[in-house]
């Protein structure tokens, strides 16, 4: 059984936000409009944020002119091994599946937002209103969705009042499995890549099976540069970052 994980090399990342755009197209995250976004209601399954996030003086640039540095962090869902979000869900709308993916079922979610409160990474988003789809955008909706036993997951267009989050493009995993089956061959971990990994301009993102000791992600996760965000809160994230420098 694979354990899917992502490695992001911050030394290579150029903060182009290509991952965020690819994610938006792939997963049908609605554009909420400038006034709602200003209220903090934009939905960004993958977000590129400046570091430090809440400095005393809000400036993305630190240091003098010769030593000025800008730091950004690109942040999908961490798909924690010990996710604080799933434990608080009163209806099991979010859960970890056997491959380590943290899933979210739009048909089950009651919109209590306990998971959004419990997640220390802030990667969960709530549909405050009916997701707006202008006719032009609606023509480009990704028709994929994931459904098991009456659930509704993946890029399926969300109703209002439910929580959504990065799924590591779980519909792509299903499609890759189906394709391998039709081609009559074994499914390989390389067949499955989320949209952000595929699009990354600087090839800073790596994706694969953590169980396989020879996979790229396993190899990179053993690097001395490897770290996880907020390791101290005991969530054991499966998104591993490689430090700059």
């Amino acid at each position, binding site marked *: 059984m694979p354990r899917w994980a992502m490695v992001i090399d911050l030394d290579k990342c150029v903060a182009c936000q290509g991952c965020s755009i690819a994610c938006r197209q792939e997963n049908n995250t609605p554009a909420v409009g400038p006034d709602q976004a200003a209220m903090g209601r934009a939905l960004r399954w993958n977000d590129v944020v400046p570091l430090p996030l809440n400095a005393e003086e809000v400036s993305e640039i630190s240091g003098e002119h010769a030593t000025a540095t800008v730091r950004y962090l690109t942040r999908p869902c961490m798909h924690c091994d010990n996710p604080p979000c799933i434990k608080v869900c009163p209806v099991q709308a979010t859960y970890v599946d056997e491959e380590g993916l943290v899933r979210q079922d739009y048909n089950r979610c009651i919109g209590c937002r306990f998971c959004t409160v419990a997640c220390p990474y802030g990667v969960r988003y709530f*549909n405050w209103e009916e997701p707006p789809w202008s006719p032009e955008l609606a023509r480009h909706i990704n028709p994929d969705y994931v459904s098991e036993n009456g659930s509704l997951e993946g890029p399926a267009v969300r109703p209002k*009042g439910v929580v959504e989050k990065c799924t590591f493009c779980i519909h792509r995993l299903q499609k890759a499995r189906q394709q391998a089956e039709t081609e009559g061959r074994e499914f390989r971990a390389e067949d499955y890549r989320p949209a952000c990994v595929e699009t990354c301009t600087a090839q800073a993102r790596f994706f694969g099976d953590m169980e396989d000791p020879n996979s790229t992600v396993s190899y990179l996760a053993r690097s001395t540069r490897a770290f996880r965000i907020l390791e101290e809160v005991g969530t054991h994230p499966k998104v591993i970052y490689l430090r700059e420098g």
Partner: protein
Amino acid sequence: MLKVEAQDRETLMEPLFRAGSGFYALALLLLAVIGWGGFVYLRQITDGLGVTGMQRPAYWGVYMVNFVFFIGISHAGTLISAILRVTQAEWRRPITRIAEAITVVALIVGTLQILFDIGRPDRFLFVFVYGRLQSPLLWDAVSVTTYFLGSLTYFYLPLIPDMALLRDNLPTSAPPWRLQLYRLLALGWRGNRTQWLRLERVIAAMAVIIIPIAVSVHTIISWILATTVQPGWHSTVFGPYFVVGAIFSGIGALFIAMTIMRSVFHLEAYITEKQYRYLSYLLTTMTVIWFYFTYTEHLILAAGQQEAEFPVLASKLWGRYAPGFWFMVGLMVIAFWVLVLPGLSPERWRRVRVFQPRFALASAVSAAIAVTLAFLPQAQPVTAGTGMVSGRTVLLMVAIVFAIGTGISVLPWLKRHIVASTVIASVCVVVGMWLERWTIIVPTMTHPRLIAWAGYKPTSTEWALTVASFALFAFLFLILFKLFPPVSVWEIAEGRVVDEAQAQLEVPLPESSTPVRRGWGIARR
């Protein structure tokens, strides 16, 4: 036919069948507010929660504050009445009914807040169908449901003999449905020995059972916050802190409710100064415990200086949420002052000129003017002679001096008016406890670790639903006490028998009436 004393019939039973224009006017006003709330809620359902001020990261707002607040208020009742019953406190008799009614009504209104808050109220029952045992929200659903059913039973059991009394002593003018209602609710009560024994046993058992349930309810509500790893919430002290706060605000609500009932139903002969005095001891104790917990909670955050937690504390102490926090502290200080200091002030102060209400009023107005001046926008910051102290600080210090002056000069008046002073303290406590829930929930919500900090400002929708919730609370109370007597008639009658028996007891005199003074262990006569 069960008999009831003329006095009880006149003050406790007959008003149930009279409804003046005041009653209808109040009921209509409350219904109008509730109707407006219903309309606003329907709009929230059709438009989504976007009509509220909630956003990312302030995922929870006023609804959650109201939820914690109302469930806290509910602890008035059942817990206090259960503790007083278990400890056989005789003075409890006239106030248990009102206390238990607060619990039932507050639980209904509190649970409604959850419906306001969730994005998909149509899926509310999923909590019971697909419940996840690990989720504090499921624990909460179970404990609040248990508490509601338990306190409903506990409200109903002492009501049974009263229902029979009403059934048998119905005024002729009463509509027939009243008779049917009371006959149904009396469950065939005839007041024979077996029935009394059974009833006493069940009430005693329920009083004991309800105490741990009540404690668990607010503990679990605190765990909704404390089981997350959010800065400022992840604290072991939250369970007892919330329980203490709940009982605290509950007693405050009980004081307010019983004072209103006392003046509306003219219950001065039943709810006497004794009830106010004894209950105020309980409120004073809770004030002290509340200060202790609040100080502990904030001291530990301050001493820890944790990177994520400190900004939350800073926003409370001197940041965006400081006005609410310090207003809360000020209210609690006033409550403590009003409860404790009048008892300490010497009787002869009454003769001192300055200690009079009109001086207190003048002093309070001066303090208010000083505060207003301090927060008026100034063209140029005024500085006092030192140049180090701003005009605002000076004005605030002046305001504090005037406030203390008010507090001192009003003491003799407060001492003579125990009802007024406890009600002043209770209003401070109830408002302060709402602010306490606010300053626990909102600063943490707006200062998460990995989301840009943001403010949270409730919209008119949230305020409308809050006001409607309070109106619903008042309305349910109004209806409840148009149907049931505000004071437990049979318990009062029982109390009279107990009093009479005690009056006939011959208390032996102490052996020596002059106290023996001892110095160095040797008795000196």
